[in-house]
């Protein structure tokens, strides 16, 4: 009986025209009868295959250096960590400002198991995951008593506590000198390790997807909306909140272990508060509750350093201008593109003007004077530290202009790939709020 009811709900019921009109803001109902033609399916398959080639095969062809392999592996690890934070902020609606503790605990656990207990790499990851779950569940117990802003404060303080106290315990973490965490694929051999990280990322994505398709995921979303209402519907608020934390801890533990072995060693200075903020940045900019968006956002932040270091010196003419200026211009362009600013005409015009100016500078016979930006009393500006400015600007632009982040930008593409008509207006702001009433 229940089954027929759900079937009935899913069957194409024609909505009365007035109903459609009465909900402005939501995209028009897709025609459920719509099926892409075989050419359409081919195009969709082609796009997916292109992405797969980009991720799996393009590396060996274009990016051969170990530096690039390292950065790619880091992107996969960051994506796992971003998905972990997404479980907390996106699904359970509790913000964590101390996620460096989650990740760091996994990193130290795996490093300890592999170097001190001399176990294989996979055992290290497993132990890291279990310890990650345990510590996250303990913190989750606290989240049952203290909620909202005050809990954010607790996580912040917890992160600092982990950084100073937990990671300073000599016998486990090696104190100030840190601990070795050998790369399982041999020293500096990052290429196979990238595929190991990708495999773990695929596993995490699968768990996340299954979680949100089942009762547990729906319970988490209900609790995020309103814990009291959820409990009147028979949802065990305590159990599911702790479950949410457990899943976040699992992902973060795995991510931490992979990060430790990627870096080759772990020490406590690595897991500072600023790292936690980078994690929050990439998750929010990626777009909460949108797995693809978060993977893209996290990869962007992981590759940002590489991008900024590789781009200066595009052209000998440009070197004459201080490298800071092209980097700043390029990054501003990236920010505008990522946050969807391209939809505004005046921003497009501004970019056009900047590009034209740059082109004139490049082809004109006039000698470009050396410009070294500097503020009196301070050293000259260098592009290396500019990465620190990019993230926050992206975050603020995301929050203020496009609360759905990258996830909102790519919604139409996802929608199309799933077999619908291309509709550029899919992905309203209603389903991308950062968090709701729990504060």
């Amino acid at each position, binding site marked *: 009986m229940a089954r027929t009811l759900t079937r009935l709900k899913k069957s194409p019921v024609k909505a009365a025209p007035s109903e459609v009109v009465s909900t402005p803001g939501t995209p028009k109902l897709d025609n459920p009868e719509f099926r892409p033609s075989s050419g359409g399916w081919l195009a969709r398959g082609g796009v997916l295959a292109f992405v797969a080639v980009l991720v799996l095969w393009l590396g060996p062809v274009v990016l051969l250096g170990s530096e690039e392999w390292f950065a790619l592996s880091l992107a996969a690890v960051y994506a796992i960590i971003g998905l972990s934070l997404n479980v907390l902020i996106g699904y359970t*609606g509790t*913000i964590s*400002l101390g996620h460096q503790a989650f990740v760091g605990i996994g990193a130290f656990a795996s490093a300890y198991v592999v170097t001190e207990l001399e176990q294989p790499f996979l055992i290290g990851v497993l132990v890291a995951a279990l310890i990650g779950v345990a510590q996250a569940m303990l913190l989750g117990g*606290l989240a049952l*008593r*203290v909620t*909202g*802003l*005050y809990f*954010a*404060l*607790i996580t*912040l*303080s*917890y992160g*600092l*506590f982990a*950084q*100073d*106290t937990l990671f*300073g*315990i*000599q016998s486990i973490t090696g*104190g100030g000198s840190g601990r070795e965490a050998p790369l399982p694929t041999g020293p500096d051999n990052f290429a196979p390790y990238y595929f190991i990280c990708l495999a773990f990322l695929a596993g995490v994505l699968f768990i996340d997807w299954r979680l949100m398709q089942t009762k547990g995921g729906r319970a988490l979303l209900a609790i995020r909306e309103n814990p009291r209402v959820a409990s009147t519907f028979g949802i065990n608020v305590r159990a599911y909140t702790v479950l949410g934390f457990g899943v976040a801890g699992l992902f973060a533990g795995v991510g931490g272990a992979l990060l430790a072995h990627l870096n080759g060693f772990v020490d406590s200075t690595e897991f500072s*508060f*600023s790292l936690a*903020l980078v994690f*929050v*940045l990439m998750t*929010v900019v990626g777009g909460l509750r949108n797995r693809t968006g978060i993977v893209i956002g996290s990869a962007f932040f992981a590759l940002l350093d590489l991008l900024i270091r590789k781009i200066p010196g595009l052209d000998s003419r440009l070197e004459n201008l201080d490298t800071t200026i092209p980097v700043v211009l390029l990054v501003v362009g990236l920010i505008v593109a990522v946050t969807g600013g391209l939809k505004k005409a005046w921003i497009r015009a501004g970019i056009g003007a900047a590009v034209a100016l740059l082109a004139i500078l490049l082809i004109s016979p006039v000698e470009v004077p050396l410009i070294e930006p500097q*503020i*009196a*009393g*301070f*050293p000259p*500006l*260098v592009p290396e*530290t*500019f990465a*620190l*400015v*990019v*993230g*926050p*600007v992206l*975050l*603020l632009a995301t*929050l*203020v202009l496009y*609360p759905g982040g990258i996830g909102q930008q790519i919604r139409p593409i996802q929608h199309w790939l799933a077999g619908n008509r291309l509709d550029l207006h899919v992905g309203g702001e209603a389903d991308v*709020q*950062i*968090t*709701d*009433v*729990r*504060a």
Partner: protein
Amino acid sequence: MAFKGLLDPVKRRLGDRYGMTLGVLCGAVLTLVLFAIGQKEALVLGIIAGASYGLLGLGLVLVYKSSGVFNFAQGEFGTVAVFALYLATTNGVPYVFSVIIALIVAGLLGLLTERAVIRPLAGAPRVTLLVATAGVSLLCIGLEFWIAQPEPRQVAAALTRNDRVSIFGIFISDQRLLIFVAIAVIAAALAYFFSRTNLGLAVLAASQEPTATNLVGISVSRISTLVWVLAAVLGGVAGVLTAPLFGFTPAFLTSTALVPAFTAAVIGGFTSLPGAFLGGVIVGVVQAVASSLNLFDSVPGPQTASLFALLVLILLVRPQGLLGRS
């Protein structure tokens, strides 16, 4: 719980002063214990450090009281002011004018934050606003690192004499005393502002019933601007007064004092201005004792550990803080 109702008659008798009494009692017991175990120096050091936390905490309380936001940018308002002070003094501007310039810069930063970030997010969930203020803070930190590099710098103090006052053999510099004076003056002025002036009452009204406040002819958005500028100037005062003590680096207030200041505000009850000072002193003393006692010898980072324990304890036992109202 057999003891659950034990204190009820006392609570009823004391009413609003219950929290205050509790705080004073705890303080007295703590002081006695510290004297008994020979840690009176820690008491003095803690109170000194706590004053800086309290000063930063005042700005946090001001923003929370009037807009319900945890302002993670408060530390950066101070640090940016210190950078402005440093730039002005190294370029030959007299000290007094440099301080004024620094406070104006802080105020402008507050104005900018309100216009560019807080106002577009009006009506957004409070956690979103929290992330947004953290974003402002990060942006300031990024710019500071980009412009100034992470090396430590020194900035001149308003008062330079160091040996005027000493308690238990610990000299307290005049700059430290100035912090106490500033905190007393600011707390008194803000308390007067919120309880006795029309504008202060309007600020409270705007935080509690924004729509109704607009309806009676008070501009809520102007009040929001006022509050953020005021908070930023307070942050600037905190930065300018504390930077000369240890020198400064980019993000020095955020990394050293923001979490203690938040804890101080939580202990004080987050709506109480004297509470921020009281909380600051408690945090300072607990940290000083934790780092001077041998009890924590086996545990690294006693200051952050004690801070975390204190925060969790307060939020579990008395979430409304000592001087706050539930």
